[in-house]
């Protein structure tokens, strides 16, 4: 049980991110790679992810403005986006990416657009939540160990 109130808050935030399905096991993998030599590894990777994936979101947005849809191109962008989302454990965003790709494969433009709107919402929510999380993490100092969500 964490005595430090900031660390307690951090644990609560962390648990909520897992319980609500925003993050999956892969996030824990990243946490396990964090150590004294690399104390901010998780935040670095997540920051890199949001910076890098913003470009892909833009590409997809622009591609969805051109009719008829180039489903191959869209699928290509989403494949990349899904990949990095998966690598940081972004569970909900990954699920929307999968759905988007399925609509691409079946040539369903409506489905793509709908799913993309949903994806952007999840992406924005995740970004906000993780920013808040890391803000507290920086104040709280290092946690003892990465623990697996129940």
């Amino acid at each position, binding site marked *: 049980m964490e005595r430090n109130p900031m660390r307690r808050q951090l644990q609560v935030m962390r648990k909520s991110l897992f319980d609500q399905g925003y993050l999956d096991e*892969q996030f824990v*993998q*990243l946490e*396990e*790679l964090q150590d004294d030599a*690399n104390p901010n*590894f998780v935040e*670095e*990777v997540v920051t*890199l*992810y949001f910076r*890098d*994936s913003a470009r892909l979101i833009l590409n997809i947005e622009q591609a969805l403005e051109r009719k008829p849809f180039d489903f191959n191109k869209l699928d290509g962008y989403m*494949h*990349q986006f*899904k*990949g*990095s989302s*998966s*690598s*940081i*454990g972004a569970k909900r965003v990954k699920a929307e990416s999968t759905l988007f790709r399925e609509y691409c494969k079946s040539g369903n433009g409506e489905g793509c657009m709908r799913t993309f709107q949903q994806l952007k919402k999840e992406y924005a929510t995740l970004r906000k939540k993780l920013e808040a999380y890391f803000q507290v993490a920086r104040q709280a100092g290092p946690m003892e160990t990465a623990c697996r969500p129940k």
Partner: protein
Amino acid sequence: MAVRRAEEMGGYGHSDFETEEVHVLAVDDSLVDRKVIERLLKNTSCKVTAVDSGRRALQFLGLDDDKEANGFNGLKVGLIITDYSMPRMTGYELLKSSVFREIPVVIMSSENIITRIDRCLEEGAEDFIVKPVKLSDVKRIIDYMTADFVGGGRRVINKRKLRDDSGDRSSLSPPYTIISIFIVNTGFSHQTSQNGKL
């Protein structure tokens, strides 16, 4: 870097023996994945060079073809781990390149497609990891790449080199059983699986 001759070890084949530290060349066009794989490998005590394309990997290794090591105080690349889906040159194309005969190659892919996995393994890939890559995946590969064997010392297994040296492809199929044979002989308990992933 200590290198012992095969003969000294009682005829285990043609491979060179290297110390625990492996220089791994990681190839992935994704910035995020490169950062993660680099940390995963460093966490397993590997030296890592990460590049963003097959072309850059070839360039890097091209500087290495002289038996003179590149970077890390003379530590030659002992393993290549590459993403499958990359623009211009896929991981599979990289694997097929004859330049890599001397170096074992592991393929990573976010897509768990049996035909893709089989094709890579048949072409001589050491293993196939389904992304996202976990620490256990990397540990498993580094462990069996540098397995202990009876008589002491460590060896780096290179399946394609063994196959080429034996001159007979058919005797070594399916490719991934080679690893289990060596592991069994060393007394390790180890599973191999049909799709290259435990």
